[in-house]
């Protein structure tokens, strides 16, 4: 079984600070991590590899330093990794990103046919959840979003049954391979890296593909040029004009007074 897992390297948003005057993101010193949602996809892929054998190929589009994120995934047990990296990819929105990733997956498939593609549910920076559907559409893969459980994979019949989170319930869907799964968070727990895989992660070459190696001929479809969306403005949320009407328990007013006061305010306004 050949599985491709797409991951994005993202800034650790818990540590992101916004410059109070210029409203720009202060990236200096913010560590880059594997998008946390993508680890649920990776763990699910590794479980299928444990069960059926085969390989898990990691794929990332990003700047050269995204190699670290790919090595991290190899340390968890992925077979190998490809970094699609080229200045021409800069400024990509989801349409251009899915174009580039789809081209790279086609190339990967030329080496060995791909049975399943995994992505995370969404990223913690762009946060659109649009890349998975976009890649599936471009490659003609059966799309399964928000998957909470893979019930059954039958490699002989080439079928797959999953549970998918929908509004107000869960859909049980059956489809055929090849498919693309976007994995829901909290559905599994990432394994610990073994010593052997950690050593392998340090040594194994991460293949770097530029746009030509990724099989991209039409440069008008990638990067800023291939992106229909334009960020026209970035700004801070506006503060409310006045602060809350405050009451303090203690100085002169008892808890009782304060609560009664509040009740009158809420139910007369």
């Amino acid at each position: 079984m050949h599985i491709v897992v797409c991951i994005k390297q993202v800034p650790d948003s818990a540590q992101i600070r916004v410059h109070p005057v210029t409203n720009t993101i202060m990236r200096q010193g913010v560590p880059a991590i594997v998008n946390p949602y993508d680890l649920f996809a990776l763990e699910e892929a590794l479980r299928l590899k444990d069960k059926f054998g085969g390989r898990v190929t990691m794929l990332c589009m990003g700047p050269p330093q995204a190699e670290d994120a790919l090595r991290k995934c190899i340390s968890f047990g992925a077979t190998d990794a490809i970094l699609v990296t080229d200045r021409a990819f800069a400024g990509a929105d989801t349409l251009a990103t899915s174009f580039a990733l789809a081209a790279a997956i086609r190339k990967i498939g030329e080496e060995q046919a791909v049975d399943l593609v995994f992505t995370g549910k969404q990223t913690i920076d762009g946060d659109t959840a649009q890349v998975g559907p976009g890649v599936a559409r471009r490659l003609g893969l059966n799309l399964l979003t928000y998957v909470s459980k893979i019930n059954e994979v039958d490699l002989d019949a080439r079928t797959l049954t999953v549970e998918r989170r929908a509004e107000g319930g869960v859909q049980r869907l059956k489809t055929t391979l090849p498919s693309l799964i976007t994995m829901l968070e909290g559905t599994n727990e990432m394994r610990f890296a073994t010593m052997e895989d950690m050593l392998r992660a340090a040594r194994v070459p991460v293949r770097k593909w530029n746009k030509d190696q990724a099989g991209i001929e039409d440069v008008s479809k990638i990067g800023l040029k291939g992106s229909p969306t334009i960020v026209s403005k970035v700004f801070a949320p506006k503060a409310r004009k006045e602060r809350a009407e405050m009451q303090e328990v203690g100085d002169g007013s008892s808890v009782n007074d304060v609560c009664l006061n509040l009740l009158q305010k809420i139910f007369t306004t």
Partner: protein
Amino acid sequence: RSTELPEHLKAYKGVWVFIEHDRGQVHSVSWELMGQARILADQLGVQVSGVLMGGPADDMEAFAKEAYVYGADHCHIMRDPVLQGYRNEPYTKGLTDLVNTHQPEILLLGATTMGRDLAGSVATTLGTGLTADCTELNIDGRALAATRPTFGGSLLCTIMTLAYRPQMATMRPRTAPMPRRDESRTGTISTMALGMIETDIVTKLLEFIPDANRNTVNLSYADIIVTAGKGLKNADNMKLVWGLARVLGAEVGATRAVTQAGWLEAERQVGQTGKTVRPKLYIAAGVSGAIQHRVGMEGSDIIVAINTDPNAPIFDFAHHGIVGNAMQVLPVLTATFRSHLDRRILKVA
């Protein structure tokens, strides 16, 4: 890159809302969007259309009547047995065909699991721009200016699609108000066939398992919410929020700090990575008011905050603040509400 709209795309006119429905009920986000679509269309001087797709068992004519009441002028109905229950493949084909035939300039969907799945596929097929999870929609010039929180809500960004049509966006449930109903409004209907049969479709829907607690945690649409923050110190003190909630007929919400501590279930989390809520009354106890929490609840009509720290950020956007120990205040507040609300009910009776 070009920001000019090519000549052949200038014919695209009108604002569309994809109306999401499930087992006889329209998702409220579709009506929230209808209200927004009406405002946008009036500014552009164009019509609002609803898109209804479904199977033989779905009463889409009834949904269309509702759509008019909320602001639509027209509805496109596509009915086919293969559209009974959402599946990506036939819905993507149907919506793409409708767009290519009728050429709307703006297409809006709810940022639900269905809306995001469908919008991502349709935008890719059409090769157009899609802005995700918006919290505000405006017109700038003649184009859609869609605003969404970024980096966990610490900043907002406005995104536009200038040289492609339609301009697509998904909007987060509960970020726009429910529009006022106008029972006198009517509209027109047109229908279109899907042109697919079951054997064309690879993915089969085997079963739909409704959530057992579907009606127990209905945070997004609660009128009153009492939210517990980390300042409540321990799981046992959750009984104080439950007590107040019971008296007010409220739902209980939580900050991420609280759901991560396991004091309340994950479904109760309000904020950037939880639910967006818009109740009439939001009472936050022991909540600091971090930006990721704030973006999920600042649309509430009245916000009351109880916090020991007079400088807690929540007081910057709450309407009423009580500086005090929540463990002391909550029981008294519960008792006060209980006796006075009872008295009000007695007065009415």
